[in-house]
Each structure stands twice: as C-alpha cells, then as structure tokens.
C-alpha cells in the first residue's frame, strides 16, 4: 500500500469573488522510500500540493490517505498531531526560532509530543549528529551559515523520526555550492530509506531525484521516473535503489 494516496484532490481559493483552482483533481501515490521532486513554475500549485501532503492545509474536495489514515476528514487537532509525529518539514527560509539555540530548535517537535526533557536532548543530539552539527548545539541560529542553518532545519525535521520528509525549495536561499551539500544530505537520507518529497522550480535539481512530478495549472502534467528521462545534470551523485524497509 502506498504511504500517501491522493485521489482527485481539489483546492479552491476565493479571492474577491474570483474562484481560483490551485489544485484541480490531483491523483498521486507516494510509496515508502520514494525520493520524489515536485516541479513546476510559480503559481502552478506545487506549494499548495505540498501543504496538503504535509497536512498543513486541507483539500477542498477529494480524499487523502497518509499511512492508512484518512486526512481529508481529520480535525485541525488531529492534523497537528500527525504533523508532529509523521511529518518533517524543511523550508526555504530555514524557519528556525532565533531566540532558541540549535539544540532547542531541534527539540521543538518533541516538546509538543510531550517527550520528557532528558530524552528530548538525547534525540536532538542524535539528529544533529546525522547532519554533522553536534558541536554547534549551543549556538544560536544567527551564528551559523545559511547551509548550517538548513542542516539544523533538516535535523529538526528528522528528530521525530517522521514517515515522510517534505522540503520546500530547500536550496532556494543558498548559493549553489551549499545547495549541493544540502542535496547531498537529502540523497544520503534517501539511501537510508527515508521517504522524501522535494519541491523545486529548478529542473536540474528535479532531475536528481528518482521520481519527478510536474505540476502545471493545478494538474499533474508528468509523473515519470527521472531515470527514464535520461537527462544529465551537473550534480554527480552515486545513486542506489532505495532499500525497501
């Protein structure tokens, strides 16, 4: 069974009497261990799709299942719980809390799950270890470089051991070299068997991922394996088939 199942998802906005179909009947399956990129021009609805996939938003109609649970009928409280337990987010602008230090930022999702303090810091250190920033635990986000901040954000997304990781233009705010490092981190996570969805407008980045979904005008225009497209990219990573766990 697919980890995420979208069936005929629609999202409609009403802006001053004008009706905008941000998503217009999207069907999508994401399997365990998939590394998928969602690509499309701005305004295509890719962000909306990711928000719905990430349970930040609810569809206007259609059905959605995540890990066997019906999402389209869930209450806001249930959605918050699902976000806390099953989903990790990495944003374009890092979205770290400036008043907290790195370790506290990483701990944040655990606080809302009621994890006791000692276990929280243990797991936060483990997550920081995964992104190689254990020695920066006591630093403030403002004392780190952009790439380091994004790695802290990845650690935060990983700390609750989510079923699926969403990244919204994770390299959009970084220079190309740092961006590569971040993408490398994602590839590594993919190799470890994590399910990752990456939203981007950059076809070169999208070409890196085994699966690619192209969105245009709120519809899926292309749902192909990147391997089949055969495009060459400037990124040269060793690619392995995902271990199915």
């Amino acid at each position, binding site marked *: 069974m697919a980890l995420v199942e979208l069936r005929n998802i629609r999202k409609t906005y009403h802006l001053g009497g004008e009706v905008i179909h941000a998503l217009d009947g999207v069907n999508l399956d994401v399997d365990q261990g998939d590394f998928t990129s969602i690509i499309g021009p701005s305004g295509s609805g890719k962000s909306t799709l990711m928000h719905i996939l990430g349970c930040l938003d609810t569809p206007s109609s259609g059905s959605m299942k995540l890990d066997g649970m019906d999402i389209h009928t869930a209450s806001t409280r249930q959605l*918050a719980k699902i976000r806390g337990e099953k989903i990790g987010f990495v944003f374009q602008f890092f979205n*770290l809390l400036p008043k907290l230090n790195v370790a506290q930022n990483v701990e944040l999702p655990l606080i809302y799950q009621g994890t006791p303090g000692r276990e929280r810091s243990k797991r936060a250190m483990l997550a920081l270890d995964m992104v190689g920033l254990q020695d920066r635990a006591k630093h403030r986000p403002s004392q780190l470089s952009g790439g380091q901040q994004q790695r802290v954000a990845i650690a935060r997304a990983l700390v*609750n051991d989510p079923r699926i990781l969403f990244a919204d233009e994770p390299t959009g705010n970084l220079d190309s070299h740092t961006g590569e490092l971040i993408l490398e981190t994602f590839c590594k996570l993919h190799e470890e068997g994590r399910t990752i969805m990456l939203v981007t407008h950059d076809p070169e980045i999208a070409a890196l991922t085994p699966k690619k979904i192209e969105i245009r005008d709120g519809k899926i225009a292309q749902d192909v394996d990147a391997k089949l497209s055969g495009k060459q990219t400037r990124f040269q990573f060793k690619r392995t088939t995902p271990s199915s766990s």
Partner: protein
Amino acid sequence: MNPWDTIYLGIKEIWAHKFRSMLTMLGIILGVSSLVAMSALVKGMENGMKEALVAMGGLEKVRVEFQDDLPAYQKHLTDQAPGLLMKDVFALQAGAPLVENITPIVEQHGYRTRINVTYQNKRARPWRLYGTWPGILELEDHRVRHGRMFTELDNEMARSVCVIGVELRNDLFGDPEKTGEEIIPIGKTIRINGQPFTIIGMFEHYMTEKERKELELERLRALENPQPGGVVRDKGRKGSGPSGYVFRLKNNSIFIPLQTMMIQFRAAAGLDETADPRLSGIYMKVRDINVLETALQQIRNVLLVSHGGIEDWSFRTEEDLADGIQLTIKNFRMSGVIIAAIALVVGGIGIMNIMLASISERIREIGIRKAVGATNADVFVQIIIESLVIAVVGGLLGLAVSVMLVNSITAFTPTENDPVVTVEAMLFAFSCSAMVGIVAGMIPALKASKLHPIQALKYD
C-alpha cells in the same frame, strides 16, 4: 505538552523582553499594592471604630430609657405614663433571666441642667452627673485608676461620695500635662451644686489609640528637644476623630450613688416641686448576644406588666452603632476595591496590549510551532501562560510593594490607626492579579491559536 515546559517557555519569553515586561507588570503591581494597602487602611479604621464600640460597653449592653412619646394607639394615655421606676428594676431582676447586671441610672446633663462643680476657687462643668449602682462600672467599661468605686453600702447609706473622670481633676486640681506632676485628689471634698462630696475614686484617662500615640509622640519629641521655659498654653481641643466623643464623655463624667442622687438632687426636682422618683434609664447586659432578640422581648413583657400596658420606654442597643460601623467600613472598602479594580483593569489592558504586540511580532514563530506539531490548544495555552506569568510576577511584586507602602503610610502618619495588612487581603489581591492575567491573555491567545499555519509561515 508538558505544563512545566510551557511555564518555562513563558518565563523565558518574558525574560527576553525584561524592560517591556517590567513596564507591563507595573499596572498589576499598582493594582495589587493599592488593593492590599486600601484594605489595610480600612482594617485599621475598623479597629479604631470597634475600640469605640467596646468603650461604650459592647454589643451586649441594652439600655431601657424613658420615652414620653407613646405609640399612636396609646397617645391618650400619656398623662398616665408611670415612667421608669425602681420597681421596674426589681421586676426585671425577678422576671428577666436573660439579662444580668440590671442597673438603674439617673442622669443629669451638666450643661442642660447647669451643674456646677467647684473646688476652692476653681469651677468645672461635668458633661454628665450619674447617680447609679456600682454595676455601672462593668456596663460602661469604666476602670477605676485611683481610689475605689462606691459600694452598695455607700448607696444604701446615701453617702456623699463621688468618683470622677480625669478631665474634672484636670479642671479642678490641675492637668499633669501642665503642672508636670500627677495630682490624685482622693479624699478631697468638692462641691456639686453647692453640696459637699468627697472624692473616693478617679477613673483612668480614657483615650483612643490615636490619642495615646499622639501623646507618646509628643513625649518623645519633648525628650529629644526640650522646650526651654516659656508660657505653656492650651492650644485648644485636639481633634480626636469620630470615635473620640465616647472617650471624652467618659473623662468628663461624675458618678455618685443612686440614693444620694435621689435624696440630694431629686427630692424636690419635679415640675410640681415634689420628689421625682423616675429613673432616666435602666442599663443591663444580655447574657448572650445570640439571644438579644429574645431578651428584648422578655424585658418588654416584664415592663408591660409593671407599666400597666403603657409603652413609655424605648430600647437602646449598640446595634445601630455597630451597623453604622459596618456601613462605614463597607463604604470605605467598596471605594478601595473600586480604585484597585480600576488599577487592575488598566494593568490587564496593558498586559493584553503587550501580548497582542508580542503575538503579532511572533506570527512566524507560531507558524513554525504549528508546522512541527503544536495544536491550537498548545499555542493558546502558551500565550495564556505568558500573560499569566506576567500577571503573577506582577502580583507578587505588588504584594511586596504593598507592605512597603503600608509601612511608609504608617511612617508618615504615626498617629492614625495602624493599617493592618491581612493575609486574606493579600490572597484576594493575588488571585485577582492571576485572574486578570488569564482574562487579559484570552483574546491574544485566541487570536494566536486561530492563525492558519501556512499564512503564519508566509508572514513577514
């Protein structure tokens, strides 16, 4: 979410904006401290008034007084009204077991009936001349400081003896404040309306707590910088506040035995130049304040019989005074509470304002928290706790400030009744501050919890 984490988070958030939080707390500090200080002042005032009530003989005292204004249906019987007589006293002693210490009293107003008290070339005018039984000592809360009270034997023999208040000693023999030595005139013979009376006792100097303090303060000042010589002059009567009258009255009274009064001042005092056997009143004490109503009914029944059904008397209890005190206290307390409530409301608005500002600069943070799994309730509780922490810390500081405030009030006005800080007032004020914190946090918390995560995340 663990509540301790939430509280920790709230304290941290407030600590991050120390100055802003401090200013916000100021409103709560003022509200709480004014509430506590006000109630302390009122409590001090209440104590002063209760003091006067005790000086009058307490709530248990019942006075039966002659009243020639009969009830409407008995108006035609006015000329048959017997008045209060000694037989009523004996009837009450026999027939009203709920009251004790039944004491007849004949009272002469010093000014209305022009009573002159003289000693050698000095003259004084007492406020009251009482002819009564020794039992009056307990009823009126009198304390004999020098000599003795007259006894039942003195009464029986109708001896010409008297017990005087301190003011009369001051007028006739000299004020220790001016002469510098205390004269105890026991054994001296004074004349009351020309008739010789031997002083056998003198009461203590009754004064309010306030007067006592004033006196003490004056003595201290005199010790610190003694005035060299000069003419000592009376600077007029000192104001002694609303409760001072009772004390001055007691200091200006003369007591003589009832029989002496009847023989020497009442034997030919009636309008028709015949002896007047009527008493001005019968004082007594109810055995238990809880049966006051029943006791009054009992007295009424006895007197109705002995007066042949004519109701030519009235009851005087101190209930009116007590009610008056209650009312005054209630009014003061009410105005205090209103002032403090206004201060607290202003403080609460301050908190609400700062919380609204705080959440609008943290919209993004709220979005992030929601994205990583915070429920609406988590966000709501977090904001409420922050507001509560401000209010509670402000409340605690306010309690500290209130103690200082009360101390400084005492320092500035040492002669007033001491304000009394009560634990109840502190608890009340503190819980008020906590409540204000919760109420003030409600709207900002609701606003924050209702934010949509995506819009909050996109907010700059």
